[in-house]
């Protein structure tokens, strides 16, 4: 990559700064979640059945709830570092176990959605840029504009209504016969639209550069000009979008999973909200937040690595 020594030092400083900020952010998230959780009246053992004072005392002591909130926070943080998020208030099951099994499903769904969004977004964006102001460009931009205005839950409900219920050509999701087609489409539509827009603008920008003209003048084939010279440089802004893309797909999957009744982390989260399962809400919030922050961090660092023109600050 031909970085000289001072650039490497700069890059290192930048990475250290960003990692430090990410750690503060994650700590802040834990802090906010923990203290807001404790601001809610009633403890985890206030169920419909009234318990005697003595039972409550034993339970509180056992789970360390008799201690002041800051002490509890320290303990909670210690446990989180050991991967222990506590137990669910409604099922009594271990939260980290639930997160692990549920996240496997979500990760599969989200991973497919990320790939679909990236592939289609880049291809459509490049096609639109290469056919600027011709009909393919107009058709693509029309749909892209429509999809950016469509919330993921609307897209998911429409897809479910049309293909599963009215036309009945795609089966409804079940554990034995998981059909990921519709949920993946629903999840990837709006990020795909963003990537298409992004690719189109940066591709147009790249195609207008001098080095493209030089390459054409040298007699480089059109295919090579497009793929090697233009598309490669047009990809740089897309890389920065990968972090927000993952965040968008994770948030989208909160409702999409719920609509398609997929037992992933997202539907677990929505379920825990409706059931007011506080420890579960906290566990999942912290888990998802850490993923989002890490992904943003990674995509920013990769961005700086890929494009030497970016100034480090």
């Amino acid at each position, binding site marked *: 990559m031909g970085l000289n020594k001072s650039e490497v030092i700069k890059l290192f400083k930048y990475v250290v700064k960003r990692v430090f*900020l990410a750690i503060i952010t994650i700590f802040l998230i834990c802090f906010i979640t923990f203290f807001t*959780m404790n601001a809610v009246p009633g403890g985890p053992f206030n169920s419909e059945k009234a318990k005697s004072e003595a039972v409550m005392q034993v339970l509180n002591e056992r789970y360390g709830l008799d201690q002041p909130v800051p002490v509890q926070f320290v303990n909670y943080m210690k446990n989180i570092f050991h991967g222990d998020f506590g137990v669910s208030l409604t099922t009594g099951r271990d939260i980290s176990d639930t997160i692990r099994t549920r996240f496997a499903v979500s990760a599969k769904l989200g991973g497919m959605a990320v790939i679909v969004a990236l592939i289609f977004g880049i291809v459509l964006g490049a096609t639109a840029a290469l056919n600027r102001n011709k009909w393919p460009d107009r058709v693509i931009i029309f749909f892209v504009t429509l999809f950016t*205005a469509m*919330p993921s839950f609307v897209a998911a409900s429409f897809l479910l209504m049309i293909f599963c219920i009215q036309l009945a050509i795609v089966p409804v999701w079940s554990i034995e016969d998981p059909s990921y087609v519709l949920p993946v489409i629903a999840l990837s539509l709006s990020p795909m639209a963003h990537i298409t827009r992004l690719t189109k603008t940066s591709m147009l920008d790249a195609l207008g550069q001098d080095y493209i003209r030089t390459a054409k003048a040298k007699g480089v084939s059109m295919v090579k000009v497009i793929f090697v010279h233009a598309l490669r440089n047009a990809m740089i802004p897309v890389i920065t979008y990968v972090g927000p893309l993952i965040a968008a797909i994770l*948030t989208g999957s909160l409702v999409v999973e719920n609509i398609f009744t997929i037992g992933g982390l997202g539907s677990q989260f929505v379920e825990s*909200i409706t059931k007011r399962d506080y420890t579960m809400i906290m566990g999942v919030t912290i888990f998802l937040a850490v993923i989002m*922050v890490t992904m*943003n961090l990674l995509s920013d660092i990769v961005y700086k690595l890929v494009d030497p023109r970016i100034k480090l600050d």
Partner: protein
Amino acid sequence: MDMQNLKKNPFSLQIDPAKFEKATDDEKRQQDVMAESTTFFKDGMRRLFHNPLAVMAMIILAILIVVMIVAPMVVPYSYEEIITVEGVRDKAATNLAPFEFSQREQAFMEKYNVSVFPHIMGTDELGRDYFIRVVYGARVSLIVGVFASLMVLLIGTLYGAVSGYAGGKTDMIMMRIVDILYSLPDILIVILLAVVFKQTLDFSNIPIIGKLGTNMVSMFLVFGLLYWVGMARIVRGEILTIKENEYILAAKSVGASPAHIVWSHIIPNCLSVIIIMTAQEIPAAIFTESYLSFIGLGVALPMPSLGSLANAARSGMQSYPWKLVFPAVAIILIVLSFNLIGDAMRDAFDPKLKK
């Protein structure tokens, strides 16, 4: 001096003034090709209204707003009113199709030979007029969107202006705070606060907010806490460049106060960026509101919202698909119009894009 005498040599190439006539005042005026003086704002507005997509979006939005204002006055039903015939609750008037009347309503119309106001979008599962509910839902979305973006505008501009103008250590610290807030996952924090506030706070006594419910308070709070960071960053960036201009130095040298400089020299100069950002913030806020309402953390019942209407419609998707289609199309239309207007504003007001 005689004009004729000027031409000494008949073969000379010298121009013969006699062949020319003096221009009249009228003709002179025709030579004034100066366009009418224009301001940056006027110029931007001109360009905005020459964009067919933006004009179309504005017309759609205008129609929607007119419907939202007029419909509650014209339609004789309210959003929480269950349909009654002759003062008796009409239990059969649930889940009617658009423009369909229940049997009792038909009997009533025949008996007295009057017409009952039609249910333009049918009725919901409790027998409430669906059209008026969708209209109120759209109202809620629009109001939330506009107020949330105004809040973002206010906080973001102030924060960014102070940070950018102060510079140095203050700027550094303020921007690090922004960096951290920027990376907080907004939707998760909204959900978290919405869940907690629902349990701890009671706003039911406050007039408008009480009707919208505590969830909306938490949403506004989160907008006020998190969403302004984008605006603050951009305003700060603008101010850092504007600050270096000579007229700022001139204002300083005649003893203008920092507040005066920020307010009357710097803010007007980054107005275009602020307007563009605000226009783009509205659809984002509407998205968040409908999303929260969809997962049941939005406005309090029985106040409808487009998101909660869409969510309620899911259970009857097979038999009554229109109940999903109407609120969904309303969301798409509103967000689409705002998106198109926002994009057009960016094209019209961003001086850096000028060609």
